[in-house]
């Protein structure tokens, strides 16, 4: 079930129509659809940056069989709205799409999608990274990792708190 939580296309702005969407989904994220929403912008934007995070199986996660993502319905969406508004106050963004999986995920599956379009590439890079950093710190999601013989909740990382503190300088 894919739920589009907010989506508005301002009719007045012919070239710079602003598209903003938040999606929390308990089924696989359709990356082609999400990419298209940001990248196929008919020349109104010029620059687009997309971040995707997937369930990783590197040296640290050897033997990982899957992951469960839980969230706080209602609060998650309002936290994401706040983060996007903060980004829009800093940079001129023509399109913003944030999508996040919940439920059970297998290795390689996308967890999160952050896409922004802008007139200039620097703004697009900064905004996408800003939204990801704040999502990591403020959005009410929790990960549980499953291995063959055990499961455990993922612990928050100090590096993610540091990532957010950098933005005070921007």
């Amino acid at each position: 079930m894919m739920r589009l939580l907010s989506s508005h296309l301002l009719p007045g702005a012919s070239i710079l129509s602003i598209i903003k969407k938040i999606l929390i989904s308990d089924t696989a994220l359709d990356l082609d659809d999400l990419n298209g929403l940001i990248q196929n912008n008919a020349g109104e934007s010029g620059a687009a940056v997309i971040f995707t995070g997937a369930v990783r199986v590197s040296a640290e996660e050897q033997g990982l069989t899957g992951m469960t993502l839980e969230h706080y319905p209602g609060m998650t969406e309002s936290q994401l709205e706040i983060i996007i508004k903060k980004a829009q106050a800093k940079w001129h963004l023509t399109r913003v799409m944030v999508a996040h999986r919940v439920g059970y995920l297998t290795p390689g599956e996308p967890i999160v999608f952050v896409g922004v379009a802008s007139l200039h590439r620097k703004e697009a890079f900064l905004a996408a990274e800003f939204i990801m950093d704040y999502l990591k710190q403020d959005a009410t999601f929790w990960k549980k990792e499953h291995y063959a013989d055990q499961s455990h909740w993922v612990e928050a990382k100090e590096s993610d708190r540091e990532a957010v503190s950098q933005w005070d300088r921007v």
Partner: protein
Amino acid sequence: MKINVLFFASFKELLGCSSISLDISQENATIAGVCQSLCSRGERWKSVFDEPSKTVKIALNQEMAELDSPLNDNDEVAFFPPVTGG
């Protein structure tokens, strides 16, 4: 007053409970009062809510809150560990 209390992630698992409805007296109407009331439910509850550490995050009506935040009837209070999404 009636307070709806939610638990997420490891807290939900540890306590075996995802939500609970509490009756809180007017003089106990802060989040600290909710914690005090929860402690009476047993050892596991006490381990989380007796002097809750920094790793106990609190939301009041879906916004981040503190132990001394005051409560009103029908408020929603949530307890959860630091978030780990993305």
